[in-house]
């Protein structure tokens, strides 16, 4: 599973909010890049599933307070990076998944775009709970 991260500020920039708003052609270039990345995975047969998440401002957190569940709206600070989407690939090796994810480093973005800290994506193998029980 390749996990992509973003902050509320990134979402705001992409949706044209505030001073850091990306120009529309930059957003289109980014979408086109992501689509191409995705399409290549579908064509190589390595694609399993991909979903994007809505902005952190739409998130809710459910926590326990004194034993009772409490629901909080949008608990993330606007600069905090949270999961923005994921892509699941099925490929030959962990190294191949790493290679696929590393291509994202070329994702286009406006020259002046503010990025919060270092850019990163995470890759984690999905636990195969049934492995070993087939035979």
């Amino acid at each position, binding site marked *: 599973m390749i996990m992509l991260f973003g902050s509320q500020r990134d*979402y705001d920039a992409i*949706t044209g909010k505030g001073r850091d708003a990306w120009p529309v052609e930059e957003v289109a270039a980014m979408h086109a890049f992501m689509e191409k990345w995705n399409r290549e995975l579908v064509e190589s047969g390595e694609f399993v599933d991909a979903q994007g998440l809505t902005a952190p401002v739409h998130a809710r957190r459910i926590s326990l307070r004194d034993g009772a569940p409490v629901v909080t709206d949008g608990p993330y600070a606007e600069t905090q990076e949270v999961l923005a989407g994921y892509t699941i690939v099925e490929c030959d090796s962990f190294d191949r998944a790493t290679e696929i994810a590393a291509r994202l480093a070329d994702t286009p973005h406006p020259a002046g775009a503010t990025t919060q800290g270092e850019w990163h994506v995470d890759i984690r193998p999905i636990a195969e709970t049934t492995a070993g029980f087939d035979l």
Partner: protein
Amino acid sequence: MTGTAVPEDLLRGLAPQVLGAVVRRYGHFDLAGDAVQEALLAAARQWPDQGVPGDPRAWLITVAARRLTDLLRAEQARRRREDAVAQWAVRRTAPPADRVPADADDTLILLFLCCHPALSPASQIALTLRAVGGLSTAEIARAFLVPEATMTRRITRAKQRIKDSRIPFAPPAAADRPARLAAVLHVLYLIFNEGYAVTSGPSLTRADLSAEAIRLTRLVHRLLPGDPEVTGLLALMLLTDARRPARTGPHGELIPMNEQDRSKWNAAYIAEGVDLLSEALPKGEPGPYQIQAAIAALHDEAPTPEATDWPQIRALYEVLMRSSDNPVVALNHAVAVAMTDGPRTALDLVDALRPRLAEDHRLYAVRAHLLEMAGDIDGARAAYQEAARRTHSLPQQRYLNARAARLASPG
């Protein structure tokens, strides 16, 4: 490969007729679907070399029937191994030779079966696209952005459900017919909207869904040419889809109707939609699809936004509101009122809808437009921002934020 490719349209068009005929003769809706798919594959493989047979439909039915027999034998053998009684053998023999098989009716019955109220809307859609549309499971899964395994499960469950409920492959009773036809039209409408509502990103495959909905609705219109709501739905789809080329800018950004380049609208679709509508409207009390088509036609026929016949649109929304208590219809009505009576009157109507649409970004987007029309720039900006916060769609957020930003820096 020496021959020419088999036109996909030919196979797509034959698929529901062949499936309908095979199910009518032999039953087994679930296995018949697989048998027909294999017959279509065989056709795609063999026809380019051997030529298209004289009666392609009969060829496909024969091959599918043979394949169904194999599948039934395998199933039978499996069941025997499980010690089950094989009492489900071929349900009916071929129809009497003196009866002309009604292919058109078969397709219609197939549609009624796929849109049966015992199934969830998601299953109705999936089954209709698979059985009547002849789309592969992978194609349907891609269009609805779900993994193929999910779509396979959905279709399998729907087929199982039809099998378990023993719904016969027969036209619905006369009393059920209007409700069943309404379910079919609703499913086609949902398929169209699924393809039309998306504006960017991985949406390219979903535009195909609108095209597929139009193709299937044309099919229903051919089968039931006298039904004014079927005609109305086809007109509505054509008149709406006509605006697609102008709805988004070069970078996928949303363009509101009054800023669209009307020369990009699909004139052929508009002409066809208007013709269909003029044919349907005189046939008695118009249903909701005809009224919505009439509204779409008024927009499409206006040479400029200013020349739009807003009093007529407003009156049509009032007719729609009488037949259904839908707050979104009321919201659209308010927009028409703004154009006839001014934004302040419309704002009162919108505010009255607040309790019913409190969570809906559309209410705030309409308020924002009305406040902007009324010259309340600060109020409009705040409403655009509020609408942007409430929608989950990134292209819509982008559009609403851009409106807010434009009001922040005039000029």
